[in-house]
């Protein structure tokens, strides 16, 4: 069975929680005691319907303020696949959580309140989905019931969206539009009698067939997490390199290149879950054994011998800042690329992006919380990263604040 990871986005009150609640409810993923609990809570608040948004708003502060602050993960499954939804907050100040929630998504569902049309948060969230190269974006025009299911209104929003964001859309991105009412469950899992003009699939039908695997043409990459050496008499010479394949495939007999050593060798065995297999693919956690005795440790990279990433001591990257302490020229950080860490210095902050207007201004003094810009970094040792647009799984990094140790920013190699 495979897994589809979805991130939801939209402004506060566009109906994200209701939509997710609806998906859970209609796929019978909510146990009866939980339904009873939200039924009681709905009544306490004086609403006369089952407030499905109560299924996901979990933290005390959120219940007090009636908003979603942090990413909540929600799970449901159909006979086809398992779904993981990252329910991300709509408030501007929580953009960092939205980036966090969306970073692993294969599908981004962006909600628009049909009455309000495209708003600033729509632009922001779509820009983030594009920056993250989420392969599939579904724009869900919600609350159609409040506009008498007006066909023209829907077409208008779609047309405006397409015009406003053409420059933003990566060529490989799949973009779909959907008119819905989450509250009444229309076009979520069942099609709507009120919108005969919409003949496309429901949201769930779209999700059931959405692509969940990365493209096959990506070059093979794996960073070594740890070296496995049992040091027992029986397994005296066993030396396995444990890691998770980030892209492509590795098979027994393949010639690979080991970095930073730049040594070529051959794969003699691959183990997954402790058992021998012939071939492993992106996402598999494996232990790889090699023909030659090479000096390999945590952070070494295995790749296909004819398509290796370049060693970079300087990186130019798009950066989204996630911390209250701003990113500034000359500051040093710990850069983590995959599992490999090194010191990095911010050499030059080139520009800052106005996400909504999609314009860049040169030479900003700093990048503050939730701001996005382009910067170059100098590294203490080479990193074997790909351009994010080419191989996303090997083209992103985080910046860690050396003093607070928090994850302060995320970067995408240009």
């Amino acid at each position, binding site marked *: 069975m*495979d897994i589809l990871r979805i991130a939801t986005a939209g402004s506060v009150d566009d109906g994200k929680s209701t939509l997710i609640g609806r998906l859970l409810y209609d796929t019978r993923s909510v146990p009866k005691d939980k339904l009873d609990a939200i039924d009681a809570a709905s009544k306490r608040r004086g609403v006369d319907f089952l407030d499905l948004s109560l299924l996901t708003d979990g933290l005390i502060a959120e219940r007090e303020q009636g908003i979603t602050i942090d990413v909540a993960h929600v799970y449901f499954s159909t006979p086809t696949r398992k779904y993981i939804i990252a329910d991300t907050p709509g408030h501007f100040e929580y953009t960092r959580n939205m980036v966090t929630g969306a970073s692993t998504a294969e599908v981004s569902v962006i909600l628009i309140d049909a009455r309000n049309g495209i708003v600033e948060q729509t632009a922001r969230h779509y820009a983030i989905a594009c920056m993250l190269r989420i392969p599939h974006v579904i724009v869900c025009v919600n609350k159609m019931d409040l506009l008498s299911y007006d066909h023209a209104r829907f077409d208008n929003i779609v047309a405006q969206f397409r015009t406003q964001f053409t420059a933003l859309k990566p060529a490989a991105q799949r973009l779909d539009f959907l008119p819905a009412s989450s509250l009444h469950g229309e076009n979520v899992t069942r099609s709507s009698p009120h919108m005969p003009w919409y003949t496309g699939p429901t949201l769930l039908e779209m999700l059931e067939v959405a692509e969940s695997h990365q493209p096959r043409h990506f070059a093979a990459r794996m960073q070594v997490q740890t070296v*496995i050496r049992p040091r027992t008499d029986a397994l005296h010479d066993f030396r396995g390199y444990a890691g998770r394949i980030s892209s492509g495939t590795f098979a027994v007999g393949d010639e690979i290149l080991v970095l930073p050593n730049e040594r070529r060798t051959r794969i003699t065995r691959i183990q997954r879950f402790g058992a021998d297999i012939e071939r492993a693919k992106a996402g598999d956690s494996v232990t790889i054994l090699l023909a030659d005795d090479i000096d390999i440790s945590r952070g070494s990279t295995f790749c296909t011998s004819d398509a290796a990433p370049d060693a970079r001591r300087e990186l130019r990257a798009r950066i989204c800042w996630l911390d209250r302490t701003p990113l500034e020229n000359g500051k040093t950080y710990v850069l983590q690329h995959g599992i490999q860490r090194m010191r990095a210095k911010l050499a030059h902050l080139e520009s800052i992006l106005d996400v909504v207007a999609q314009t860049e201004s040169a030479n900003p003094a700093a990048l503050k919380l939730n701001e996005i810009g382009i910067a170059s970094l100098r590294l203490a040792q080479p990193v074997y990263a790909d351009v994010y647009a080419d191989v996303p799984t090997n083209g992103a990094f985080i910046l860690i604040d050396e003093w607070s140790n928090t994850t302060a920013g995320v970067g995408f190699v240009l």
Partner: protein
Amino acid sequence: MMKNSIAASPIFADGQAQAAAFPYELADEAIYILRETAAQFERPAILFSGGKDSIVIAHLAMRAFAPARPPFPLLHIDTGHNFPETLTFRDRLVAELGFDLIVRTVQDSINRGRVREESGKYASRNALQTVTLLDAIEELKYDACIGGARRDEEKARAKERVFSVRNEFGQWDAQRQRPELFDMYNGRIAPGENVRVFPISNWTELDVWNFIREQHIALPSIYFAHERDVFDRDGLIWADSPFINKTPDEQPYRTVVRFRTVGDMTCTAAVRSDATALDDVITEIRSAEISERGARIDDKRSEAAMEKRKRDGYF
């Protein structure tokens, strides 16, 4: 009902994953997280409760580091109110898989005056074990504790990170969680801080059961239907035991039940069930009307019970 050997050999062939009911990507993810924990921390340990989730963690660790031994001991916080079946099972698992087991007891915390026993009808040692745990982490200098919590269990847990940084007092601060991007886990901490690691965050209860079935993992017998002395309280079925203060009208009777989660005898309710085999259990869960933690008496105390306990340093 220990039908399976504990040290089940990993069964996995190419192509088997597609046909499986369990999404094996979740096991890859958990193994990646366990390996990161081993690499990023100096003294990591597995918090072992004897429940199915921590048993699954132990088995994942075996697979993550095979053929070497996992670099984690098991830490069991013993409330003294365990189901005896859990302890028997624990000792067998430790012997067969070859883990080091470290036990710290709530009784010892009581004796040393660190905590006071609760009294009354609902007395339980569930809250007390947080103190024993935090003392153990400090004493043993653990910088990472691996737990079997899952995000689908409860609303506060749905917001928990995989690497959850705790301050010196073990507390969870929901507002100050580190962003967790892609699969880049940041386990850098200051002295005194530690991290709780949750490798099976993205598993659901059904995923756990399907994994147990497909990987032939043995469980304590109380997960399967058996005869037991129970009594009714607050609409739930409670196991009769010397640890519970019953009122005179709470009369024990014998019936067939099983447990969906395994905590203390004082805070785990039983469900009526005839499911004696794994397949029956899975069928039952698929159709179950009650969520897993719905049978946890400790969660019933208030709507925000779990979040409050997490802030105090609970698992």
